[in-house]
């Protein structure tokens, strides 16, 4: 039951955010500061969600660090989402097999 409430809150809030502006507003946001804030939010969220959580994501700090390094390198050289993700998993798995 509690899970149902959690999901209802998640889905409800997320839908309202998407739905209200398209239904209500017809003009553009003019404030450069607000626009910039909204532009940066996803990157801030991803940075906070990834670090330091990524280092605890496999149960082994060494494996996670290897996965992070591999993902960082692949992303730095502009590889696709799926390639970067698989590089992270493969590196983490390799370290787990070695140690």
């Amino acid at each position, binding site marked *: 039951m509690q*899970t149902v409430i*959690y*999901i209802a*809150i*998640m889905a409800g*809030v*997320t*839908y309202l*955010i*998407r*739905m*209200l*502006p*398209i*239904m209500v*507003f*017809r003009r*553009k*946001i003019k404030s*450069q500061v*607000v*626009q*910039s*804030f*909204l*532009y*940066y*939010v996803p*990157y*801030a*969220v*991803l*940075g*906070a*969600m990834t*670090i*330091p*959580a990524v280092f605890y*994501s*496999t*149960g082994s700090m060494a*494996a996670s660090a290897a*996965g*992070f390094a591999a*993902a*960082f390198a*692949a*992303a730095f050289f502009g*590889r*696709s*989402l*799926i390639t*970067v*993700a698989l590089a*992270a*998993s*493969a590196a*983490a*798995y390799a370290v*787990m097999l070695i140690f």
Partner: protein
Amino acid sequence: MSSNTARADLLNGLKDSVPIGLGYLSVSFGVGILAVNSGLSVLTAVIISMTNLTSAGQVAGIGVIAAGGGYFEMALAQLIINLRYALMSLSLSQKLDGKFTVLSRLAVSFGITDEIFAVASGKSGEVSKHYMAGLISLPFAAWTLGTLLGGCAGEILPDRLKDALGIAIYGMFIAIFVPAARKAVGVLAVVLLSAAISCALRYIPVFSGVSQGFSIIICAVIAAGFGAVCFPKAEEGGGGS
């Protein structure tokens, strides 16, 4: 609009959505694994994916559920993390053609994601509801299917492999912010600041009472606020991946 145009628009939308669908299949696989690793059932994971259709918000939400966080914390975390969709929704509202009814607007707004918004925005001129229906339906199906597959894999795979796949979703996040940070110093500053605050909240004992959901909210507001003031964007941006 004739039914021929409608069908052509639908097919165009489906065609444009294939790369998005393929990407979603793999990202949601990671979300499914993460959900099951966090103690959620496969069914719960799939329902979350079908009702939310967003990666970062779902990962944060799964974290809140796993930690037994509060309902207010859940709502606020979703609000902050998904706030960017409001800007996209606003921008998309200017791009819909005159044939949109209230019902079709309500339906299309559900499908606003970073990628779907980006593709719809990239179309020249206005977009029809049939095009949007095509553009949204395939990624939605892929997002649902990927979560199901990831959740099931999470239940049957050996522990080591499951653990290794658990890092995949973070790999996706890294794949989004690293190239962006490389291109724009503002993004780099925002990501570094956000990561630093995130570490501070996690490791400094005085903040040990701050839960994961609130931690993301605090990081996002401070770091994005810093970026908006110190590195304002010149052009109007959709943001996101």
